[in-house]
């Protein structure tokens, strides 16, 4: 009888070795474990055996049945996994190098640079303010100490309007408003669009952005001014910059300075950006003129302050390498769509 079992065992092994797919496996299962299968047959034939034989045989057959069941299940898993692998292998293969379309729009390069500066100044406790573009002569000139007959007020530079107002020629036009709004102490920047009546070419525009800043308190000094300018510009250019001050004259400052930075592009050796001088004149600044403080309702005997102006448009052009200023107001989407940034 045991030879019968050995024979079955051998046959099972032979068939399992040859099985290729789930259907073949199912046939083996039916052949061995089915109602009319080999194992049932043997079990049935055990009725004719004596008790000892039956016991012995029962044990052997149960073991064999267990083994067959397990191996079939294991093989079934294996075949299923292989099938899945086969299927995955035949799945579509994607070309990751295909171009993709971005749904992102763009911010204007001026907006991007303006935000960067606003973040730097906000982090140092400066308020960010805005102001009108159509302003009075008082705002643009008188309030910042530009007297009636100053050449800056000549018609050729300023766009005058038929209601007696004008388009602001400088962000300083907001100084008076801001001094009055905040009083002292005051730390504020005010970016804005300015207008000058001049011929447009690659480096001149009638319409451009500036950013002005002011800081007023009881003991604001020239030493503080240099500190803030150096810190702020080092952040803007992401490197430790060397700055220098030269005397400069602006009606709304006293003393007034021209601030130069050592060229961040060549380190001062001389390149096209610094016109081979090693220094870039970047930022008119100075201690706020007592008359400007007074007109802003602040006592110049008690408070001092500094103010500075930055050419936002020029800075954006420098940072992005835009060689022609006319792109900025062109609305040319082929030019502007490049500024994708979050």
């Amino acid at each position, binding site marked *: 009888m045991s030879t019968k079992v050995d024979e079955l065992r051998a046959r099972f092994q032979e068939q399992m070795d040859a099985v290729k797919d789930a259907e073949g496996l199912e046939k083996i299962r039916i052949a061995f474990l089915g109602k009319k299968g080999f194992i049932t047959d043997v079990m049935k034939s055990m009725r004719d055996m004596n008790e000892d034989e039956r016991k012995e045989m029962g044990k052997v057959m149960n073991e064999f049945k267990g083994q067959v069941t397990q191996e079939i299940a294991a093989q079934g898993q294996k075949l299923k996994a292989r099938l899945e692998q086969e299927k995955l292998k035949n799945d579509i293969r994607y070309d990751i190098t295909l171009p993709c379309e971005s749904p992102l729009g763009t911010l204007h390069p001026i907006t991007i640079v303006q*935000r960067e500066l606003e973040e730097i100044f906000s982090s140092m406790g400066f308020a960010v303010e805005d102001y009108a573009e159509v302003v009075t002569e008082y705002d643009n000139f008188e309030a910042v100490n530009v007297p009636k007959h100053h050449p800056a007020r000549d018609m050729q530079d300023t766009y005058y309007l*038929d209601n007696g107002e004008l388009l602001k020629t400088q962000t300083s036009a907001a100084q008076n408003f801001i001094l009055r709004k905040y009083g002292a102490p005051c730390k504020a920047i005010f970016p804005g669009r300015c207008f000058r009546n001049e011929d447009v070419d690659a480096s001149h525009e009638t319409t451009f952005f500036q950013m002005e800043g002011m800081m007023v308190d009881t003991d604001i000094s020239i030493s*503080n001014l240099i500190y803030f300018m150096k810190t702020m510009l080092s952040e803007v250019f992401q490197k430790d910059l060397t700055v*220098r001050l*030269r005397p400069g*004259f602006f009606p709304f400052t006293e003393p007034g300075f021209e601030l130069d930075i050592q060229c961040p592009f060549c380190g001062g050796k001389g390149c096209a950006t610094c016109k081979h001088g090693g220094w870039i004149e970047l930022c008119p600044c100075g201690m706020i*003129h*007592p008359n400007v403080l007074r007109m802003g309702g602040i006592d110049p005997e008690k408070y001092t302050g500094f103010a500075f102006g930055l050419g936002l448009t020029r800075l954006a052009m420098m940072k992005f390498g835009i060689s022609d200023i006319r792109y900025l107001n062109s*609305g040319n989407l082929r030019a*502007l769509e490049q500024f994708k940034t979050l």
Partner: protein
Amino acid sequence: MFLSMNWIRDFVNLDGIDLDELIHKFTLGTAEVEGTEHVGRDTYGIKVGQILTCEEIPESKKLHKLTVDLGDHTCQIMCGAPNARAGIKVPVATLGGMVGGMKIEARPLAGYESQGMCCSQKELGVSDDHSGLWVLPDDLPLGKDIKEIYEIDDTVFEVDNKSLTNRPDLWGHYGIAREIAALADRPLQPYPVQDLSAYGDLPEVPITIEDPELCYRYSGMTFGHVTKNVSPMNMQIRLYRCGMRGINLLADLTNYLMLELGQPMHAFDYKRVNAIEVGHLDGVNQFQTLDGKDRTIQPETLMIKSHGEPVAVAGIMGGLASEIVDDTDSFLLESANFDAVSVRKSAQAIGLRTDASMRYEKTLDPEMTVTAIARYLKLLLEIDPEAKVTSRLTDVYPKKYPVRVISFDKAYVDRMTGIDISLTRIEKTLKDLGFKVERQDDQFTVTVPSWRATKDVTIKADLIEEITRIYGYDNFEIKTSKMDLYPILPTPEHKLHSEVKNMLAFTYGAHEVHTYVWNDGKRLGELGLSNAGKLHLTNSVSPDIDTIREELMPALLTVALKNKGYAPSYSIFEIGSCVPSLKEDKLANEEKHLGVLLYGRSGMEGELLVRAKAICEDIAKAIKGVHFSYRAANETEVREWQHPYNSFVVSLGEGENAKVLGTLAVVHPSVAGKIEKKACAVGLELNMDEIYPLVKMMPQFKEPSRFPSITADATFIVDSTVPYSAFEQIIAREPDQHLERYDLMGIYVDEALSGKKSVTIRFTFTSYERTLEMAEVAAAMAKIKSDMGAIGAYCLDV
């Protein structure tokens, strides 16, 4: 302005000082130097020689063979100059020397050896004259190095005129020398002048100032018996290096004084001008200036007249008729001070800006008019000792500047600078610059010198500049400020603009553009739109761009026009200023608008309009608790660019109290069609100034119900003209207590419905206390359905 270091050295000893370093200090302490040239460095070995013989040679028509006597030897030089001739003395570049960087070596020319080079003035850098050899005076010793006789060597530097705008004292070498002396810590020599008091017995010059408001001072003196008319070479060289040109002695001396002291002067031929009146002409006149041009003189222009006849435009240029000519031997010298604004306006009016007017524009020191005459006379007598003074100094001085005295203390300097500059250093700096300083302990009382008192130095802050610039900003210790801490939050306006820009760019994929604040009239014309606006530029270069815009959308449409063919569909936006109206006092009512233009192919209008409305709704959502409403625009509200029947008004709130925020409209098909055939566009324009003040509230959390919701759909048949908002109004009238929300599922229009549409709405009912019964919901739905009868809507299933 060009400056000669030799000239400055007349007044301050700079021996042993590195000039380049000094000039750098000048840039950092006084005014920007745009360039420095060490002229003459590449020219040496030039000696006085005399041409002994001058032979023509058969090999060349141009070249001559010269024998030149150099004192200790003679040499042969081949020379092509047309004025080469025997007997004259000329500068000779000798072997081993250099001329303008060219080495002088013996070399063959036309087959003859040339052992040097005879030079022109241009070759030696002392004038532009290249017509021939520089013929030297006969009395010069042979073989002498020419640099010992003439100022071949100099350091010439150019100062940016703009940076001198506010320094009237720096428009001459003496003023610059004063700065240089302070920067180099060397003493300044007193200005050399002739004593004029010796001529007090001579007759006066008749001088009348008719308009003392515009002529602060007029000093005059007359001279005669002038025997020379050519200026000394070194004077001519200095004039040349500073950008001027020698004319004749008397005129050169006026220019020399202007460059040295900064005082413009004029010499009139005494035969033509022997009396002076300073005033105006009646009516408009023609006047011929020195440069030979006829000028139209307006009655406002201040003139110099003699016996009523105009002889000069005050402060700008003299007349041709009274100019100094070669045979002039007597002259009237003018040294005057005119009102800066008047000179600038006159120069603009006649279109002539001269070296003199440029200086007067800076508000010159009237104290120097007499100094200038005294200096002029000293120089004249040095050059022409036979010249005679024929009048006493006549000085009419109706308008004096007040003497300015400024007090301050050391604490003020410390506060303004943030550093500690010593008392002695403060005192010395101010004294070096010509201020009179009295000090008692920490207290300074400073008298401003006249040359700084016309406008430049008036308050104590001006003195801070003097002290610090000479101290040197590079020497400053830099420090952060000590300031109280307090929160600074972005303004609501700034925050809204920033959020809206981000949303449009990053959620709606729109591109931000900048357009001009004035209309682009030409392109608006191409779109069939008018160039409308309430405010105009008075000085625009073209009428196409002289109107300030009332709204943004026309500008965005011109951007679309410029981007023809860019992409089949895209969106652009801008937040910018416009002036839709004027206030009662005529001041501009400027508003910041958001404009969004959604552009696409025709047929997309509906889709674009929904997207534009979603932008509005998202802005409303950003400001919690705010509800925007929309209604069709009436005839008067429809703008030119809008579709007459698909234009909508966006408002805050509803009904009569609704506040208009902006407009949302399909772009008029005829306008869109001009951008591109088969194009369509939708525009949204909102007044951001009305939106940012709305209070932004934090969203309040509402816990979701723990009980399930029940939904029920209803499909209504209604007249197709009934808007969806009519359903909303009915539901809002008596909302069921368990109705949590309702959503539009779809609208179906079919010809079979003949003028009607079917509207499907899904209602969601929720209770916070219990699970709702179907019957309750059915009852609520029945009520809603019957209520809809009010707008003529009925359900098919009832």
